[in-house]
């Protein structure tokens, strides 16, 4: 069994006993077999001494038990690491940032406290999964639509606190951005409510999130300043229909115009999340095909060479699927307006009608629908899909550590990122995953993301190579002034170190806050680079 740092076996045994008094014997887990359930299945240090592992886990049933856990942890200086469902795979899963921490598993705090279909919000506890919330809404026939990540087994609270995102309309797919009202337990064991929740008896906690005075919600995301025990979310009213249409543009150079027009449409609230692709390249995201590898064998091709390649393929260089939500007459008019604008601005733009569905779909219709996340319906099908992907199976990976670089919404930035990442792979002898037709993701409506999916294994030698690649990608992003918006615990220090404006003033400010509100440093030490004072000297 791992022990918390600087805690003796006797002290730890006493602490576990006090945890058991707080939550009941059956909700303290300390056998090797129990603790192994909290390993990170995708760990990039799997089986190595550096793998982040828990010393025990404790599962409170309510906020009062969370308070008691925090007080015990303070008495014994035991680091604790709260998880909601612990399925944040690629970003650490259920494993703590600091080995030896006690995982506070909030799975028993699983109540949907309220869903209001007239004011379009939900209030939930951390153990509520997207499936739970979805099923709650379905069972009551409430006319609201969720925005879900994929896979959908995580919790709205956990996902939003790590800045997770979904697939529908801009205000909702930014999950932290759609929150309204938070309750959390401080390191001292106090319960705090943000926004108008600070006023007892308010009926606007999930309507108006600013309250009065400083809004501290952001301090609870990607951080270690408290344990969130309730959170409100704004939901979309159930749209009447869903419609998709695909735009293609013929030339490599047309990506610039495509991007600008898509940004116009989304920022005008006419479309949902766009999905870019490259018909000429056979796709835009994922491992480079042999055809792309051949195109790049003599270095990054010139634009002229890329135009020749596109012409030779006989397919359009780029595509974007636009998605519309709303009344039928509105979505059809929006698609018509989009087509007119593209036709006016990009020579050779072509259009293809896609799906049209009346919402909500019935259970029978959903059963065979492969696009559930676009409709706010949680799914786990992505695992089956990826397991059967021939390209995935060519590379016997066991998991992945994702690196998402945030870029401005500019065609040239996307091309630059693809080239920089491709170079980084090449420098380490890893087959490139990026190519001149790589396309961005648009989880956040105001920024592009160019992802790198770095494989993880059960093989230490291969994991060492993956760590070297990930680290190099972080460095390369920083050289280009691209932030990595979310990362695996193994790289959080490195990623945060790149926020170097004014001698890392942001991190120094966060450390002052940490010292003030969590002086013993018990909550999630090291999460996103924020270490307690006692552990700061050894930080990379």
């Amino acid at each position: 069994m791992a022990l918390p740092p600087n805690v003796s076996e006797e002290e730890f045994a006493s602490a576990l006993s006090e945890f058991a008094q707080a939550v009941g014997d059956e909700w303290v887990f300390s056998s090797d077999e129990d603790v192994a359930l909290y390993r990170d299945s995708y760990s990039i240090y799997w089986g190595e001494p550096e793998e982040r592992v828990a010393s025990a886990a404790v599962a409170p049933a309510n906020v009062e038990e969370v308070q008691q856990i925090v007080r015990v942890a303070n008495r014994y200086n035991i680091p604790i690491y709260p998880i909601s469902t612990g399925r944040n795979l690629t970003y650490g899963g259920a494993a703590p940032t600091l080995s030896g921490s006690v995982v506070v598993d909030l799975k028993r705090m699983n109540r949907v406290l309220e869903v209001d279909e007239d004011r379009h919000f939900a209030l939930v506890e951390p153990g509520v999964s997207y499936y739970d919330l979805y099923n709650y809404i379905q069972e009551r026939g409430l006319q609201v639509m969720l925005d879900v990540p994929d896979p959908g087994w995580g919790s709205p609270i956990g996902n939003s606190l790590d800045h997770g995102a979904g697939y529908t309309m801009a205000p909702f797919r930014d999950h932290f951005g759609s929150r309204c009202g938070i309750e959390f337990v401080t390191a001292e064991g106090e319960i705090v409510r943000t926004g108008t929740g600070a006023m007892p008896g308010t009926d606007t906690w999930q309507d108006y999130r600013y309250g009065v005075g400083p809004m501290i919600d952001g301090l609870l995301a990607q951080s270690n300043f408290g344990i969130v025990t309730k959170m409100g979310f704004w939901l979309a009213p159930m749209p009447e229909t869903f419609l998709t249409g695909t735009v293609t543009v013929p030339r490599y150079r047309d990506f610039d115009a495509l991007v600008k027009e898509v940004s116009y449409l989304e920022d005008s609230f006419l479309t949902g999340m766009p999905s870019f692709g490259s018909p000429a390249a056979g796709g835009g995201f994922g491992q480079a095909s042999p055809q792309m590898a051949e195109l790049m064998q003599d270095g990054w091709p010139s634009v002229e060479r890329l135009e020749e390649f596109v012409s030779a393929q006989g397919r359009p260089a780029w595509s974007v699927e636009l998605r519309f939500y709303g009344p039928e007459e509105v979505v059809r008019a929006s698609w018509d307006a989009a087509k007119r604008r593209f036709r006016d601005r990009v020579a050779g733009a072509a259009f293809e009608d896609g799906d049209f569905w009346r919402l909500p779909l019935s259970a029978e219709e959903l059963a065979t629908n492969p696009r559930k996340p676009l409709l706010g319906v949680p799914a786990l099908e992505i695992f089956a899909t990826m397991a059967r992907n021939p390209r995935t199976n060519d590379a016997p990976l066991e998991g992945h550590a994702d690196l998402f670089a945030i870029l401005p919404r500019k065609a040239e930035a996307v091309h630059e990122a693809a080239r920089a990442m491709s170079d980084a792979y090449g420098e380490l002898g890893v087959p490139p995953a990026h190519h001149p037709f790589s396309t961005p993701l648009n989880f956040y409506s105001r920024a592009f993301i160019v992802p790198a999916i770095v494989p993880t294994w059960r093989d230490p030698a291969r994991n060492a190579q993956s760590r070297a690649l990930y680290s190099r990608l972080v460095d390369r992003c920083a050289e280009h002034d691209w932030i990595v918006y979310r990362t695996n615990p193994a790289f959080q220090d490195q990623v945060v170190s790149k926020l170097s404006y004014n001698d890392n003033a942001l991190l120094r400010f966060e450390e002052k806050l940490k010292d003030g509100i969590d002086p013993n440093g018990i909550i999630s030490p090291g999460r996103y680079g924020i270490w307690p004072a006692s552990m700061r000297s050894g930080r990379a």
Partner: protein
Amino acid sequence: MSVSEVRDDLGQLWYGELRGQLRRTRTPLAGVTDRATLFCLEELARDVDMRVRFRVDRVVEQGGRTRHEVSGQPSLAPTLRGLGTDESFGNAMASVVRLVDNSLPGDVGTLRRTGPFHNANERTLVAWIIA
């Protein structure tokens, strides 16, 4: 004994049926699935403090030979090795489940043996017990 079929999305089965039943009574689960499905079930089983107690990965190698990788409670191995996927499977698994001894120390090596994207996934079925 109840029997469920898993298609691509395990989530509705877990959140709609299994988890609620298991919260009330921690009944052992037994099944034959692909590795990706078992990976998901293993992650989900933490909700109810259950874990993989035994598994036999039936790996079909390139030449068509079949290899069984067995881990977990040793006394179950002979019975599970002979299991097929025909109609007798349900009864056979039910008998094996009765042999699971939760009082024996668990085998940490049985947990998380593979991720969901293993290269042998398409050719591998896993017989497993979660308890």
